[in-house]
């Protein structure tokens, strides 16, 4: 009986001798990672009985290997789209805000829609990282790193829009409380100013939190690179063509591991895996989680104040802060799923770390938050009716719900409202079915719809409220221009570019944290019968593979 070395298999996989993730047959006791109905059992967070070394190899190995062609193509596409955004922004700044379809009735439209959309996307990251951390939800480890990264990138995208939507971009610095001899300060009563503070605080804390979590993993990357250099196993950097052509690859005269060692050495801030470091790290991480948690609630509450503190029917709604937070979590999770499900299929062995249990958990969150926003939508109608304010009632009933072909007073933007309702409220309801919660494809599709629906939610709030406000004499319409559309599409490109760079170079999973949740981390590991059984099963399984390989 040959000794099966899982590392060997991993190494083969990483070396490209085996392609893709290996699907394990369902474990009779542990299952495929999906949730079990038996409360006595918990589904494993990492499948296939990965060892500590496996985890390191899977996460770090991916970053160290040359990427697949798909990555180059995706990056090329995303970067092209991102450059469109830059061209559009330049055009906007040179010519004026009038290149968008805004007017004197609808003074905000896609600009602020996109801003709130992206800020909302940025919510899941901190929620998963901070709140789930405080609540000791260990399943968060599978997605928290990617979600945090997504947060940073989404906040970057969000930050673009308020910055460029102002009429005189070159005076945007006036938003900041800069001491000056004229003693002119910003208006601290303005929610837009609160936004400036809220978003910048959120961005700063999220960035710190993300970076903080990555320090041990950076150290791992550093050490691996250093080890290879010492063992002289390091290869020269090869420039690969993005297409599989039979051309000789160009080798650059330096070793990638040298760059890696310095780069991650710098980023890891001298992390030496010492007990004292870990002690301080855990404390600091907890404190940051504590700081971030209220931010999850505050940022989107404050963004909602942009609308709620106004007097415009459709904006002036006290339900907005919780409604916006729920919506942001909803939209953020949808975006996490939208990105992670394809990664799970594309990157080798990632399915072991991001299991059906994770997907199922997140599908449940989608269902809960989707229903919450659905409740919020219905409450708006209740309050409009209960408040007895015609202007508010009209804003909801006529300007949003009633199609223009049903009633003469119906709104031209009814389709936007119904797109929002079907995507946000109706589509997540399929997660009442277990089968749907376990289908990555179904989850991905719903995530896609929810992302669209959440964009429409902001569009509906902003544009339908503005286009028909108090005085019918000033009612108007908003139509997006190509510049509107391309700026938004371009911002998606910026997001995607940053995310692709992230999955290529940074630890997508928190190596150190996952190691905490694998069975091997348990002090009782070797006395656990179940585990031995599982080990045996694994052994059989590996054997089968080895035989297969022969």
């Amino acid at each position, binding site marked *: 009986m040959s000794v099966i070395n899982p590392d060997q298999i991993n190494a083969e996989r990483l070396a490209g001798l085996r392609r893709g993730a290996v699907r394990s047959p369902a474990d009779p006791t542990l299952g495929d990672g999906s949730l079990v109905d038996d409360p006595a059992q918990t589904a494993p967070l990492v499948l296939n009985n990965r060892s500590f070394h496996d985890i390191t190899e899977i996460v770090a190995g991916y970053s160290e290997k040359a990427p697949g062609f798909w990555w180059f193509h995706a990056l090329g596409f995303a970067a092209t789209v991102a450059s469109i955004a830059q061209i559009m922004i330049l055009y906007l700044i040179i010519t004026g805000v009038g290149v968008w379809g805004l007017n*004197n009735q609808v003074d*905000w439209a896609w600009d602020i829609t996109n801003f709130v959309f992206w800020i909302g996307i940025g919510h899941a990251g901190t929620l998963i990282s901070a709140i789930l951390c405080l609540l000791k939800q260990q399943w968060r480890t599978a997605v928290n790193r990617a979600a945090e990264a997504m947060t940073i990138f989404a906040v970057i995208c969000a930050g673009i829009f308020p910055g460029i939507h102002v*009429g005189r971009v070159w005076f945007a610095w006036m938003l900041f409380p800069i001491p000056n001899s004229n003693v002119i300060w*910003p208006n601290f009563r303005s929610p837009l100013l609160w936004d400036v503070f809220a978003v910048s605080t959120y961005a700063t804390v999220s960035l710190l939190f993300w970076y903080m979590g990555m320090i041990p993993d950076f150290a791992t990357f550093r050490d691996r690179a250093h080890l290879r250099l010492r063992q002289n196993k390091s290869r020269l950097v090869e420039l690969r063509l993005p297409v599989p052509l039979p051309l000789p690859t160009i080798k650059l005269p330096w070793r990638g591991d040298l760059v890696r060692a310095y780069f991650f050495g710098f980023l890891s801030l001298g992390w030496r895996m010492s007990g004292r470091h870990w002690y301080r790290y855990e404390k600091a991480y907890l404190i940051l989680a504590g700081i971030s948690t209220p931010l999850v609630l505050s940022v989107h509450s404050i963004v909602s104040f942009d609308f709620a503190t106004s007097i415009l029917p459709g904006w002036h709604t006290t339900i907005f802060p919780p409604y916006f937070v729920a919506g942001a979590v909803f939209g953020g999770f949808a975006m996490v799923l939208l990105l992670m499900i394809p990664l799970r299929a594309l990157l080798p062995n990632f399915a072991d770390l991001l299991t059906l249990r994770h997907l199922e958990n997140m599908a449940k969150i989608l269902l809960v938050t989707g229903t919450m926003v659905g409740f919020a939508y219905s409450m708006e109608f209740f309050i409009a009716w209960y408040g007895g304010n*015609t202007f508010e009632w009209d804003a909801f009933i006529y300007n949003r719900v009633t199609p223009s072909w049903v009633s003469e007073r119906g709104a031209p933007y009814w389709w936007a409202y119904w797109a929002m309702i079907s995507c946000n409220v109706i589509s997540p309801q399929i997660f009442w079915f277990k089968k749907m919660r376990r289908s990555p494809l179904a989850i991905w599709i719903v995530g896609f719809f929810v992302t669209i629906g959440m964009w429409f939610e902001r569009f509906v709030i902003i544009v339908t409220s503005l286009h028909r406000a*108090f005085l019918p004499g000033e009612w108007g*319409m908003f139509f997006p221009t190509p510049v509107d559309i391309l700026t938004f599409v371009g911002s998606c490109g910026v997001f995607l570019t940053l995310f692709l760079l992230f999955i290529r170079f940074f630890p997508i999973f928190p190596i150190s944290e996952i190691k905490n949740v694998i069975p091997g981390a348990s002090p009782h590991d070797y006395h656990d019968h179940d585990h031995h059984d599982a080990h045996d099963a694994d052994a059989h399984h590996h054997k089968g593979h080895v035989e297969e390989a022969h």
Partner: protein
Amino acid sequence: MSRVDQCPSTVGKKDPKKDRASTVNGNAQKLWRSIDEYAAHDEGEFQSFLSREFPAGASEMLASSRRTFLQLMGGAMALAGAATIPGCRRPDHKIMTYSRNVPGEIVPGKALYYATSMPLPGGGAEGLLVKTNEGRPTFVEGNPLHPVNQGKSSAWSNASPLSIYDPERLKYPVFREGQGDNARQVVATWDDFRAWSASHFAEFDSTSGNGLVFIVDKKTSPTRDAMRAQIAARWPLAQWISYDPTGADNRGAGLRMAFGQPKRQILSLENADVIFSFASDDLDKGASALRNARGFGSARRMRTTNDHMCRVYAVEGNYTPMGAVADHRYALAPSRIPAAIVELARLIIDRVGGAGPLANAVASFDTRGEISPELREMLDAAADDLIGARGKAIVTAGQDLPAEIHALVAGINQVLGAPGKTVSYVPAGAEEARDGLSDLAEMIGTMRAGRVKTCVCVETNPCYDTPTALGFAEAFDRVTNRIVLSIGPSETAAKATWQLNAATFLEAWGDTEADDGTIAPIQPMIAPLYDGALSEIELLALIAEKRTADDYTRQPAGYEVVRSVWQGRFDWSDFEKSWRRALHDGLVAGTTYRGDNGGQASSSVYANISSVLASAAVGVNPSSDALDVVVTTNNMYDGRFANLPWLQELPQFGTTVVWDNPALVSPQTAEKLGLEPDPYTVKEPKAQMAKVTIDGRSVEVPVWIMPGMANNTMVMFQGYGRREVGVIGAGVGFDVQPVRDIMGTRIYTGAKVEPARGRYPISSTQNHWSMESRTSIVRAVDLPAYLRHGDVKEEKIGLYGNKTELNFGEKLGELSHTPPNESIYENPFNKSRSEPAPNSAYSKGPQWGMNVDQGTCIGCATCTIACQSENNIPVVGKTEVRKGREMTWIRVDRYFTGSDMNEPGVMHHQPVMCQHCENAPCETVCPVNATTHGPEGLNYMVYNRCIGTRYCANNCPYKVRRFNFFDYATKKTKGGYRSEFPEGTPKPENINLIPPRLREKVEEIQKLRNNPDVTVRSRGVMEKCSYCIQRINAARYEMKLQDLESMPDGFFQTACQAACPTGAIVFGDLLNDNSEVSKAADDGRSYGLLGYLNTRPRTTYKVTLSNPNPRLRKPVEDPFHHGGDHGSEGEHGAEDSNGHAVFIDPLKKHEDTGYAGSLRVLGAAVGVHA
């Protein structure tokens, strides 16, 4: 600017855009500065001058000594200084400043006002005060002493300063050398023309002027009459045609029929108790429009419940300003209106008697078609009403109606005892009474036959503005010498052999006669911007005067001409003193006619009328196969104002369409004919093109709907579709001349309208017709309700147990149903006006406020233009308006009441400008403190601080904030629109593919128009009404200079207030109990628009009043309690069957002052969602 290429390499290559002369006939070969130059174009000193870069002598500088250098530099600097002194363009002759207190010298930065007058198209005049800044006329106000204006002004006069600074106006005479295709344009000088004309016109002396034709504008001016007399004296056979392109003066002709001699009708609407308007255009058109609007405002205004309000009946085809506010209005096709007038005459004469032969004539008149029972009932009730108000009643008919009908109307007014009370008749000039278009038609044969040798068009444009059927343009080509004096390029000037640049009325001397005979001087505010430009009278004087070969360049100065005419006309003991007095006052005292009955006994008038009445025609009921078409005018008049962008972008009455003249039909007719336009909810709302055919003449125009028009009636507007006018006006709209008959008839019957190929985009500033049951916006009640409840204040217990008082106006709105808005913060403006918080800013100094009486607003939008002029508000062009980016600070919202678009109840007008809220929603949301509150209650807009987040505009419930999406202020406006016409459609394009951001900068000359006291806003900045803060500040300085304790009421006016013809806008200090505005704000009718939002607006509105005849509609006396059954009232919303705003609140009956119940803001909501 030199128009001759100085660089030899580019000689002969001219940029067609840069030089008008070369584009006139597309011949861009050689241009010559003068005949001399042309003669010497091959050799000579001149050529060497042109090829040199510097003039002769310039190079001598090189060899100069230091001393010479200093001399030259000193001289140059002195000259430069002199040249930059603004006075260098001041007129040559002394003119009197309006205010004697102002020293004669110019104080830099301080504007001077001069009185002058503006001749109105078609006759009549306005007396103006023109504001000049350092010699530049920048703003126009009405002359308070002038009987027509009395301080008010019209949209035309407000826009007139633009015409001076139009960069495309003609700048020098151009001579056309040769004929036909070989013709070439020669840039000439006025001396060339003088030399040419001296010998040319002398040729006519032998033939007594045979073959010499003068085509002039219809105008009332004593000096021009004198010029005419001079010409007639020199050449008795010369033809003098004075015409009004918009058609014959039907009213004048009718009055001539009635009185046997030319008369003008002067209405005194302020004395009227009952007015019956038959498509009356008295408030918006004609020489008396301002006077009538003022009188009408006065007759309708209710300052207190003790005032009296007149009642207005209207029968009309399309909405007129008077019909829009009428208490009873009936939409009737224009061809049927004469029958209605006859019917009314019959009813009145039957009851009053004593009309002699008129009674028989009226009785025998065949109305040929029954009058609907509804209309008969209205006429019947109105007849009694008119008779009951004898001596205070007036019937008035629109200029469009036939002359015989105007004669009949004069007869009805005689019967009603109106002459001398509500109407008076003053003598009219002989020339005025002639129908110039028929004179033209007579002369056209002579022209075609080539028997006209010289035709002088003096500020007229017959090649464009006469009916195409007349064939003037072709006939004009047969004239050998075509001399055209024109301010701007025109279709006629383009054909001229001598194209002469004219001076505007702000640059020249002259005089005018107003509708009531008042003679006013025209004084130049500035010397003609382009040297040598002559005014009309200067050109006529030049032509009329015999000049010898020695002094052929002698130019009679306008100043001398006017003076000599006046010396002959007025018998003044001290001419100089009286002359100066007239210049100072802007009018000649004692020239105003006393109104009379035409100097005739009523009986002879009746006899005259009855004899002409038989020939009056009454059409048959129009159908969808044979429509009535009215060809009339709007702000463009005959097209002469086409290059003034303010007027192009001024929302048109009723439709708010800008930059176009779609033909208007009622929604029902549009549906029937398949001509419905797109709704505004599509991206580019387009109108369906239609082919309108009248007697074989046809034209294609877009069709737009106008609720409340009579069915099967179409209204078309002249003055659009100009071809040669400049980038602003060229190609804007559609030329309707092809459908007019040679007489220029205004009302046609039997027109055929069918859909044509293509759809054409239309821009309008207000897309929504209805108030959407939000009747608290424009609150309207019947007069008895106001008389009964107007002074009652209701005490109300608020949410926090405090007591508040609601006046009549507020009780009609949301505030009576919501708890009072109490701020939890100590706010200086927290307490009411009568009880300002102690020591707060609100208790001190002037606290500015405004009040708008919606009952007297006639929707003329003059305020919009006055504001635009005062505050340097840019126009944005048609495309931008379509996107909803118009920049006007004050807009006039128009709402129709009722539920049926075809039969709307009333048209309401609501001027909306910044309300200067005490709790301004815009102020709290601006992140950079760019909009803040001032101690005098003004909501400031700090342009320097604004970064353009536009949050303020989003949070403004009145939507009065305007954002500079592009650099509008400094970019040229291209008025047109991307034309999406099928190939081959003869729509001339004025392409506006160029968005404002890529347009050319405005020319320097246009910047001279700007008001120097107001910042020109850059791109990315929010702007809005400032209550004319520059005027407030100027008044404050003046107050200090005059050592006044406080600002007297009426010390200054805002631009909109000053312009408003009906006096609907009042502005002043709210803390001053005696000020007009505080009295107005204290009136029971005043309410804050959307006041329930606790914005505490400083601008208040007065509830619109309607004064229905109880026989026709029972007035609602109790607007608060509507019968007993509240439940059913909820069903039909907040408008009663008459379309009047009525507040209905089913919860109100419980007298519930509690929270939940009273939070129901608008009863209308019940009707909506029940």
